[in-house]
């Protein structure tokens, strides 16, 4: 018989995944802005 899953553990795992996803998205936006502004300077020459 499978052990009953601990809903609290599932909550924590799901929350960690959501946190990681949010953090990565926001970090990607920051990096894109940094690279974008420098590229804008390069390409506008």
């Amino acid at each position: 018989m499978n052990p009953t899953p601990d809903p609290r553990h599932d909550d924590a795992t799901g929350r960690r995944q959501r946190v990681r996803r949010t953090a990565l998205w926001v970090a990607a936006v920051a990096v894109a802005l940094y690279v974008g502004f420098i590229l804008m300077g390069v390409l506008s020459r």
Partner: protein
Amino acid sequence: MATNYTAPAAAGELADHHDDHAHPQGFIERWFFSTNHKDIGTLYLIFSFIMFIVGAGMSVVIRTELAVPGLQHVSPEFFNQMTTMHALVMIFGGVMPAFVGLANWMIPLQIGAPDMALPRMNNWSFWILPFAFSLLLLTLFLPGGGPAGGWTLYPPLSLQGGSNVAFVIFAIHMMGISSIMGAINVIATILNMRAPGIDLLKMPIFCWTWLITAFLLIAVMPVLAGAVTMLLTDKFFATSFFNAAGGGDPVMFQHIFWFFGHPEVYIMILPAFGIVSEIIPTFSRKPLFGYQAMVYATASIGFLSFIVWAHHMFTVGMPLGGELYFMYATMLIAIPTGVKVFNWVTTMWRGSISFEAPMLWAISFVILFTIGGFSGLMLAIVPADFQYHDTYFVVAHFHYVLVTGALFGIIAAVYFWWPKWTGRMYNMTLANIHFWWTMVFVNLLFFPQHFLGLAGMPRRIPDYNVVFADWNLISSIGAFGMFVTPFFMGFVLWRSLKTGAKAEARAWEGAKGLEWTLPSPPPHHTFSTPPVIRDGDLAHGDITH
């Protein structure tokens, strides 16, 4: 008590979240390797307090030199280094870390989260800062001294600084990385870690203002980093982004810098709006008037901050249409700001007001920040700005915004939440003396600078015409009086730790919100199990607006 808090013994329930401090720790382990939001918040606040004193020391050098006409104490080169470093230290070392410290302490407590979402990154984002500022401050001891071209780092002037340029730019990159990591943490925490029942429109206003601030940080800190990276390559790798001799455009730097710089002003003031919006209802014993309007006004200010940057540079010579656009767009900001001021005043209207120290600071914030806002409107008027630009009027304006605005907000927050953090009350008479002393000297310091600017005294100049002598002396006396205040505040708080009366969980009679359901001081670990929210726990949850 409606809300559960978890005692340290029960802290292991979500221990996989970050279980590295669920046991007694030594000094090094606790303060250098901490992943606890309260400890990291404390570190940020201590760091910013030190930086405020360093920056204030630099302002005393500036005001000592300016107390009387003529060159007497420091060389013009060193004077320029002091004005530049004073701004960099106060903005990036004082105000911003103080707000991040307050966010670390209060956001998890206000939304019922066990900690910040990314605790290890939280530690990292703090510990970058001491190295960044060591790098920055040590430039003062380099041959040729520190940066002297102003905190705006306009080329070509800023690139004439010799070896300090690389240090300053690297330090700014480090501060930027720290700020971005802090912002990521705030966004991830607020969007993912709220306790069940705390919808976004039930969050305390402080959390809302910080969420919007965090998005501003993510949007503009990379822009600053990009601009200074291009400065670096212009200086050391023979590029010509901003070098007119090589076909570059120095005015483009100003556009990019102020695309960062204007939202930066709001990054330094929005969290203070949130703090004042927590304090005024508490000591008026009334709910905040127009909670949702406050949220939307904050978001509007955040949006408008992106589309007004060129009002800082009207005098570079831009097309009339551009000047008109930036003038009117800037004036638009007065509308959501006016909504906020109206709502704070209306919250107090017919409230049962008491004037404990946090409320005094909050009320003075509303009045004095509004003066800074009005002088900002004057500066937004293009033809008037041609007269005011680069005069002491601008210095007076932004010090009313950043000292009696941002700094007063920070001091108000410390006096408001200190009993919660430490479990100790402070001596209210001493705190009131701190307030009134500051009120007298801050206005002596900055108000005469309006007159000096209107009369035409330029900023960033160590000498001046004798006609400006009287107001400069008064301003310097104000600066000397102000320099005492952080030490006095330190004394008030130290005395509270030593002899203060024990604080209750709800330290202030009118206080509402999850943080006040916790004991004072709160346990090292809180809300390891999500709290059960009941009517009346939240300041806004059971209120129809």
